[in-house]
């Protein structure tokens, strides 16, 4: 059951001129959150902005005894709400409702986990990587961004023994180009008998390419979609994704309650 808290800002760390990591004192939400779930955040009270915005839970913060003390959000400044979050000050209160949505389904060894992130689509993978590490799952992060300066938290993932495959659009770090290119090559060279689960989050174009690549090699792919959401609870029907229907047609599912994690091969990417 989701909890609504007026969470204090513990810290606000700027990663670049657009990206920040906001730490919120929301222990009750953090204690319940599973990798892939999200929270609905209102950047300030009043009618401007009016609605909350959805954010993946980035990290779960814990004290030395392992008790959840809060959570962080990875945010990219693109509009009013994200600008307010970028400028948020310590001690400021921010309404935070969660945890919401269906989380990732975790795999167990010997299956490997391959995470595919594009830009701010890195958001659900910090907590997923921790959960996979705790299970002893061998994991790889395929991570693409515009430029080297927008590849964040590389040390964090390296500490969890996660192999990093990086691309940048300008070639300033890793391979030049899009992240699905190295993903395709790795899948092509992997024996069919070696199980691998794909997890993808990023812009729709990247998600569609990742899902299609997974289908090409017969691999399952869980995608975390991002849609404009009104409520996050299934009330408004704003955040729909067209999914394959058994009758051959399609069905709009609400990504807030059926997702945000959905089966990549069930989404009608061209619709």
């Amino acid at each position: 059951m989701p909890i609504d808290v007026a969470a204090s800002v513990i810290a606000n760390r700027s990663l670049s001129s657009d990206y920040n990591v906001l730490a919120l004192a929301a222990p009750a939400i953090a204690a319940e959150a599973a990798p892939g779930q999200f929270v609905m955040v209102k950047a300030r009270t009043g009618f401007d902005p009016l609605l909350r915005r959805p954010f993946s839970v980035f990290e779960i913060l814990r004290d030395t005894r392992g008790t959840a003390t809060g959570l962080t959000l990875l945010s990219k400044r693109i509009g009013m709400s994200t600008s307010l979050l970028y400028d948020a000050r310590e001690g400021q209160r921010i309404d935070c409702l969660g945890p919401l949505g269906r989380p990732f389904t975790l795999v167990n060894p010997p299956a490997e986990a391959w995470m595919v992130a594009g830009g701010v689509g890195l958001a659900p993978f910090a907590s997923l990587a921790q959960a996979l590490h705790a299970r002893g799952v061998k994991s790889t992060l395929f991570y693409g961004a515009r430029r080297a300066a927008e590849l964040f938290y590389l040390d964090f993932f390296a500490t969890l023994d996660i192999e990093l495959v990086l691309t940048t659009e300008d070639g300033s770090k890793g391979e030049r180009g899009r992240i699905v290119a190295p993903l395709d090559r790795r899948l092509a060279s992997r024996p069919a008998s070696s199980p691998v689960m794909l997890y993808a989050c990023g812009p729709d174009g990247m998600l569609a390419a990742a899902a299609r690549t997974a289908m090409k090699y017969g691999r399952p792919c869980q995608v975390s979609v991002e849609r404009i959401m009104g409520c996050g609870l299934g009330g408004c029907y704003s955040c729909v994704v067209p999914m394959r229907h058994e009758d051959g047609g399609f069905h709009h599912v609400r990504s807030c309650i059926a997702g945000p994690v959905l089966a990549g091969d069930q989404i009608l990417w061209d619709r």
Partner: protein
Amino acid sequence: MDLSVRIGSLTLKNPLIAASGCFGYGVEYADIVDLSTLGAVVSKGLFLEAREGHAAPRIVETPAGLLNAIGLQGIGVRRFVDEKLPELRARGAVVIVNVCGTTLDEYVEVSRILSGAEGVAAIELNISCPNIKEGGIQFGCSLNGTFDLVCAVRKVTALPVFPKLTPNVTDVASFARAAEDAGADAVSLVNTFLAMAIDVETRRPKISNVFGGLSGPAIRPIAVRMVHECRQTVKIPILGMGGIADARDALEFMIAGADAVQVGTASFVDPFIWSKLTDGIRDYMRRHKKSEPKSEVRSPQTSDFPLQTSYFRFACELMIVLTIYSRPGCHLCDEMKAIVERVARSAPGPLAIEEIDISTDRDLEVRYGAEIPVLFVDGRKAAKYRVGEEELTRILRDRPNGSRGSGRLGG
């Protein structure tokens, strides 16, 4: 404290209703809101068959507002009855079903199916969705269409029927009148305002349907005005809505003439808003109770007059409140009612009329039995037996609290 309100034959435990299209089928919220504590829940709009609605993006935020074009995605009335209604019933929800149609026959058929289902309290006729091409609003934008549709549904159901009116007309009150004349038990208003938002960088509309319906605090003052216009025109109860975000907003609608209110967009922002709204209304009643004579703390009496409820009277602090003590079969009482009603229609400000049948209360019978009808204005005795139109107009003009009423509402 009793917050109950009567909407025709329906009694709601409080005047707070979850608006259609803003609360899923209600079951989505069952784990976080005790549905039995709401006055009622209005389902998402239902056609005979399932619909997938429009492609995303379906909403965009505008200043203090929400622009949406969902396209009435829904599971169809039969699946609703089979899959959602039992849970709503088990949770103790009062369920009002929002009924849609592309043709008059479809509205009738959906209503007929709901009439045979257990656990439906009322039908809200959606003749006002701005986001679908056929049906719906074409009934809601024509006086004859509204009248004919309500008549047709009225014939096939004993359930209370509440047409939901569109604000996208020149004179919404005339549509409320058409609905009333056709036998509607109440009217819901307003649905969303037809609107548009464009991304100037891409030069494309911000939602896939190009046009959408605007809701949220931005529309509230217009909605309040429309509710008040309808209150002055029809006698049937009004379910008022449009941008209510807190208890004061809800009270504003009730002072304007709504008997109950619906809340939509604000419950997206705060799904736990309901208890805050009831607390806020209770607090308001407590604060305003002292100034009210004891006799006003009474249950409403059924009459030909607009229903006013006991706590609504407190919300009416700013209105002129006319109370008639009467008895059934009293000729003078009928005459006075007619005159009060006539004067009320031409009164400049918001005005509430309450009729109290003294035959139901021994104390009142003793006090007023020899004097009825007795007229009170703002809790002060103003006339007995008879009152003339000119005399009543003068009483209203010269009453002691002359600054109350329309003056304050008008700013």
